[in-house]
């Protein structure tokens, strides 16, 4: 196993997000016979709605890369049952909005079985699910629901922003002893490419990544917005503004040390996420920053989010829904 930072250029190839996730699954299936994957349509030849399991059914067998009927409750329940009895299932819920169909299994059971049993039945389960606006999928296929899941004590929530993190965080999730929800942003599936270390490469859960260093403002984000924030930071650097971009990578556990350390230094924080504002994860971050750094801040914490609406279908509205680079730049400027 290699960990973040130890990957040498020779061992990294340029991969897309789908390949990186596929590789993580392949490594996990090869490493540990307790690992198996289940989900709708994940069998060959397609390997799932987005092709994430392509080739794995052939290599590891249909008993370990199991297709299921369209039965989210049954998928989640089966994964939980297997997880509390010695296995490490990796369940795919094709799109995050369908997690609602099995919310009872996930929130009332996966999240709580360790606690309710006084620690007797841990749930080493990983749920992979895809989502994100911008694809013209409409209101029921695009929501970022991560805050709802962080709200369920017992769940861990991971949102990678690039292929290397996707691989490393997925492997850490699979071998973590708690239920992890791994959120894959569909807009990154075929857009994000980057160097990905070979083999059993892991990125620890709960370690934010300082994606860009800067001294004037801290921008805290995750998922698809990381690339947008980096682009804005680059643009503002030209104006002499140093923007530090923190990619949280995992929302729970949350790397408060890194983000508070940064904001203590810059005294300004802008939070960017695609999910709706009200009770979004940004509210938690903002409250944490205010509670810990009140008096040291040079400006109130600013949030850049989607509006409190469902995801609209019309192109004109969907564009306005997603936090734009100009909104991010304006928010950063407003703190200066």
């Amino acid at each position, binding site marked *: 196993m290699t960990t973040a930072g130890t990957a040498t250029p020779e061992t990294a190839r340029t991969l897309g997000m789908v390949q990186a996730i596929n590789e993580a699954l392949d490594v996990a299936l090869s490493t540990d016979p307790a690992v198996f994957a289940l989900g*709708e349509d994940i069998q060959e030849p397609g390997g799932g709605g987005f092709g994430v399991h392509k080739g794995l059914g052939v290599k590891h067998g249909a008993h370990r890369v199991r297709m299921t*009927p*369209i039965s989210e409750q049954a998928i989640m329940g089966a994964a939980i049952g297997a997880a509390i009895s010695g296995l490490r299932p990796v369940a795919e819920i094709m799109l995050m909005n*369908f997690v609602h169909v099995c919310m009872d299994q996930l929130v009332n059971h996966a999240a709580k079985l360790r606690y309710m049993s006084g620690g007797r039945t841990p749930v080493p389960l990983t749920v992979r699910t895809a989502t994100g606006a911008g694809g*013209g999928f409409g209101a029921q296929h695009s929501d970022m629901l991560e805050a709802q899941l962080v709200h369920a004590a017992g769940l861990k929530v991971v949102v990678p922003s690039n292929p290397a993190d996707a691989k490393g965080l997925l492997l850490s999730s699979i071998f973590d002893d708690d239920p992890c929800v791994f959120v894959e942003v569909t807009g990154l599936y075929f857009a994000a490419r980057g160097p990905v270390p070979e083999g059993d490469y892991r990125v620890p859960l709960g370690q934010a990544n300082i994606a860009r260093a800067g001294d004037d403002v801290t921008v805290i984000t995750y998922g698809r917005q990381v690339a947008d924030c980096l682009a804005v930071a680059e643009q503002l650097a030209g104006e002499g503004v140093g923007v530090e971009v923190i990619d949280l990578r995992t929302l729970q556990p949350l790397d408060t040390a890194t983000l508070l350390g940064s904001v203590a230094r810059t005294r300004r924080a802008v939070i960017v996420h695609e999910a709706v504002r009200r009770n979004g994860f940004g509210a938690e971050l903002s409250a944490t920053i205010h509670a810990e750094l009140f008096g040291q801040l040079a400006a109130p914490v600013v949030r850049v989010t989607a509006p409190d609406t469902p995801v*609209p279908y019309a192109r004109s509205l969907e564009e306005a829904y997603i936090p734009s680079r100009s909104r991010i730049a304006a928010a950063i400027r407003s703190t200066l």
Partner: protein
Amino acid sequence: MSISAPPDSADAVDFSASPGIDVQLGLFRTATRIARFDEKYRSLMTSGAIGGMYYSPRGQEFAAASVAAHLRRDDYVVTTYRGLHDQIAKGVPLRELWAEYLGKAAGTCAGKGGPMHVTAPEYGLMVTTGVVGSGLPIANGLGLSAQLRGTDQVTVVNFGDGASNIGAFHESLNLASIWRLPVIFVCQNNQYAEYTPLREGTSVDRIAKRAAAYSVPGVTVDGNNPIELYNAAGAAVERARSGGGPTLLEAMTFRFCGHIMGDQQVYMPAEELRAAIAADPLVRFRAQLAVHVGEDELAAVERAAADEVADAWEFARTAELPAVSELTTDVYADTAQDGVTA
């Protein structure tokens, strides 16, 4: 042609009696309008003129047309992302429908819903859902509403074979049964759920068999035979309208264009698809009708459909996108006080 509970198949019932030629021509007209819309839509996608995703109902036209032919405008329909045929068959005007598919302000839902969420209550199209199986419980609510309000409206909920593996399907049939709801559960069994053939994901070879577990009549018919399905649907609608309760009506059919636009259908034996397309129900029915109706009349129906579709496309193409100010409206009844932040 009465159906008593709980048979598990229509094999014993003869649904072959021919309705009048006007009815048959009506079925042909509806199916033709659907097919022309679908073909034009796909060709525009292929040429890059329009984008997005599209779940073609090509091949399943009669599963919609033959059922909807029994519905009044005030009857209710619930459908899915693969809903174009159901939407057209229920009477939604093609202009507003196409505009919604393109997310234009003139669409049935002001462009906010899109193809997976078309709603047109004035035509009885109450919900189009993108979540598999989620329409069935809501159909029960529509049926219950009619029952409580004392009207004789019926509700048709369309869904696929794959949807019958969702828990909501089972809960809904049970509830409809004990409450004797005026709901017709129409399973459009196109034999695939995304990339998975029926037999690999489903414990029964015929979805209608599942009805028996809930003391609901289950009927399987050839959904590509417009007459057979028309007769079976007539019986189910009549039963619901007269207080006899729900029916699970399974229309065996096939989708010609795969799950979603661009699907290469590598998971399907090429011969299976070829045979299905060779038996195109629209082509067959046309030939059947041509024996009784002049070629001129059929050609006129086709021309009218093509013209209507061309007009709808032109209307939608030139319509405006919604103004950005629309983003935060319609979330709550009172936009001023709803706390929506933009």
